[in-house]
């Protein structure tokens, strides 16, 4: 059972289903693209959250991923490349009663839109950013992106890239992020779960979804999607639970010196009790950073969810406070305030 969400966004009077968010547009993503699964998770979670239908706003930039607003029946803004987070900031500040969802790509939010991305995270504006990370520029047909691994051969790096990639989670934490979660396109339930968690977080929630671009970067996530060894490569964390994973649920994380280390339960005297318990809520970013950075295994689920005041709440509070104290109640008051003089007939 999901816990319900409590905040100021008005709730629907009737129960909603994903169907309520079905759009009438033909989906124009490539067959087999991971994006299809993500939009399904989104429609599911919109229904689960249960805000009034008309209070959802989906904002995007430009890219394959940014086509998403057409495929959800909601208010939608398909912006310009890189500016989704800035546009969405304006929407939320103007009307904090809206539930804001940004659909964006590794190019849109980490290349051209990197600045707005880190700033919205810093400001902790209450919105949810779904970052489709396919490690490539899909829409422009296959150039490397800021998340492409060093050496990646792409249209613009025929001899391999010479750039160290960002890892989204580290950047989010470096920008003072309060919420970071990760999922994988094919794990539709996990995606739905973390999107729900994001919605229930007051502040900027970044949900990175590893997404397969079948055309220009097929198999980028083979290591974690292939049936044989994905269980050994994937750790799904849950707040308050020990970080255990593996085909046989016998692997776990412990802290060794300053690093996270994988151990096997039952070996070298390790028992379940020795395994670190995940604490998503701790304000300290250090372990969250280690989890976001780890590659063996890759960590999924809600890595960080820590409370902090949001920009939009602080704005509304400041307005109420100043209003309460001021004598100026309307423009006529202001126009006639301070030093004025009268010229008589």
């Amino acid at each position: 059972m999901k816990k319900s969400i409590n905040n100021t966004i008005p709730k629907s009077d009737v129960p909603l289903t994903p169907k309520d968010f079905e759009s009438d547009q033909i989906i124009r993503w490539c067959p087999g693209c991971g994006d299809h699964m993500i939009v399904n998770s989104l429609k599911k979670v919109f229904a689960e959250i249960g805000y009034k239908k008309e209070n959802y706003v989906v904002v995007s930039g430009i890219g394959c991923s940014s086509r998403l607003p057409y495929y959800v029946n909601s208010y939608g803004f398909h912006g310009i490349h890189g500016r989704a987070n800035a546009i969405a900031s304006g929407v939320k500040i103007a009307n904090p009663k809206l539930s804001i969802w940004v659909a964006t790509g590794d190019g849109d939010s980490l290349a051209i839109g990197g600045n707005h991305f880190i700033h919205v995270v810093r400001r902790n504006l209450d919105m949810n950013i779904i970052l489709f990370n396919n490690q490539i520029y899909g829409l422009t047909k296959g150039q490397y992106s800021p998340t492409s691994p060093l050496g990646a051969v792409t249209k613009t790096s025929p001899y391999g890239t010479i750039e160290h990639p960002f890892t989204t989670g580290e950047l989010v934490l470096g920008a003072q992020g309060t919420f970071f979660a990760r999922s994988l396109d094919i794990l539709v339930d996990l995606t739905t779960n973390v999107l729900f968690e994001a919605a229930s977080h007051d502040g900027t929630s970044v949900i990175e979804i590893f997404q397969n671009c079948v055309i220009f970067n097929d198999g980028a996530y083979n290591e974690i999607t292939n049936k044989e060894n994905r269980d050994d490569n994937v750790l799904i964390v849950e707040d308050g639970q020990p970080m255990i994973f593996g085909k046989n649920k016998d692997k776990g994380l412990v802290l060794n010196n300053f690093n996270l280390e994988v151990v096997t339960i039952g070996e070298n005297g390790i028992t379940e009790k020795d395994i670190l318990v995940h604490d998503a809520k701790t304000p300290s970013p250090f372990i969250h950073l280690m989890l976001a950075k780890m590659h063996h295994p890759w960590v999924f689920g809600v890595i960080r969810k820590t409370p902090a005041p949001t920009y939009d709440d602080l704005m509304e509070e400041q307005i109420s406070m100043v209003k309460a104290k001021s004598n100026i109640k309307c423009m006529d008051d202001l126009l006639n305030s301070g030093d004025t003089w009268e010229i008589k007939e």
Partner: protein
Amino acid sequence: MNEETTPMSGRKQVNDIVIKFVGDSGDGIQLSGNIFADTLAHIGLDMATFPDFPAEVRAPRNTTFGVSGFQIHFSNKKVLTPGDEYDVLVCFNPASLKVNLKNVKQGGIIIVDSSNFTPRSLETAGYTSNPLEDNSLDNYIVLQIPASEMSISINSDLDKKSAERTKNMYILGVLYNMFGFELKPAINYINNKFKNTSQLINANLKSLEEGYKFSETLKNFPKFYLAKCELIPGKYRDIQGNVATAWGLMAAAEKAGLHLFIGSYPITPATEILVELSKHRELGVKTFQAEDEIAGITSAIGASFAGALAATTTSGPGLSLKVEAMGLAVMTELPIVIVDVQRAGPSTGMPTKSEQADLYMSMFGRNGEAPIPIIAASSSVDCFFAAFEAAKIALEHMTPVILLSDGYIGLGSSVFRIPKMADLPEIRPPFADPNVKYYPYERDDEWYVRKWAIPGTPGLQHRVGGLEKSDIYGEVTTDAKNHEKMVINREEKIKRIAHKWPLQRITGPEDADLLVVSWGGTKGQVEGAIQNLTTKGYRISHTHFRYINPLPLNTHEILKSGKKVIVCELNRGQFANILRMNYQDIEFHQYNKVQGQPFTVRELENAFTELLNS
């Protein structure tokens, strides 16, 4: 100085005075200016003021590039500009004299803080001999006031530095005596300003009063008085152009019943608009100081989508960065106001200097065919009305609107007859009716305006974006004919706004020998020049453009009325060229200046008479 010779209690009557205070940034120039202006206001005179900052925050003392200034033009008649030349120059150091002397009227008054004309400061200012002693100022009335020394000696209870700082009050005392002003308003101002430190109040007041007394001891001390003011009756205040812009936007939001959202990034000389708006949380203003200009405008577009009156404020380099997003606003047909307080370019240029050279970019600076209405404010006070009108057009026509101001009128102040909100026109945005099926790109036949459906309204879910959309339905499409239709729809929508503009007006004779065309912030100077020439008997008329795009419907007719037509602007001929595009049958002469400075009335007079005589 417009002296009249009716003596009154030994004072000469004058109608019109230009004073400029100059000195180092630390000399309290702006404060002296503000106190003086406040007193003028209390007396009920008309005035215009202009502060003149160095590019540096605190430039090294006594350098010519570090001179700060504050100019006030006041009169019992209508004041058009802060003035070309000074009747009175108040100099706190040699460098400021050096830089400003050329603009003092022949026979004008120069007040100097003589304590600061030391050999060292004369040298850093680049003087080889002391102008107070070498007869180079013989054509002026020079009043040497040892203000710094006196301030120190009469305030010996204070540390030397603080005591010396009151020298500006000492000199202000001299000025109050010169014009026969009561000290009362100044005393109130000082009491208010330093309210937390009674020591400073005392020192400043002492200097003020001592300066007043000291001036009585001067030989040939000139004394004036101003006749009663002739302004239309009403309530007045002094307002800076940038503050007026801020208030105009706030007034529009109130009138439209919307929240005001501002997405801006600080930049000289537009910053004050953001600063002013940040103060008004009490009226619900949401200022978002964005990480850059792009976030400034795109957040405004988002806020507009969400149903706010949204604006972004900037200057040239910032406007450059907003170009792509302006196209998005054109395409999504969402209302936003883009305020550009122009400064001297290109690139970073001369940030603290003024120019009108962003007109081209405002008209043409977008990829694709992307017309945007342009309104240009014509004075500091007009910034209020122009901002209001820009917002009204944006909201009622669902379009971005560019409001052009400039550093000169933006930082300058003038006297503002306070309007009543009830007297301002209504603003009625075309909200979509939730009970009618909504098509995002359906337009009304008269104005070609689409409807505004606000998120949170049940049943109006829809999508907008930067891709070309199908007519009426707003679906993404690359259909060839549809694209052409939409390009023309957007063009036509802007063209039709001309029917909302008042007709272009002309002042002066209908069949003048010369028709002078101006636009934006140069109105005052041009009017001044034309008044003077008209007095001299020239047949010269004037038409000033406030609406740049679309041009008013009768523009052609107006332009044909002059035997010769000259377009004056602070750039290399941008508006002249736009007129040429539109009116090929008219020959446009040009008078241009790109010096980071406003026109002077005198140079305009020369240019006009030259053309008339040619």
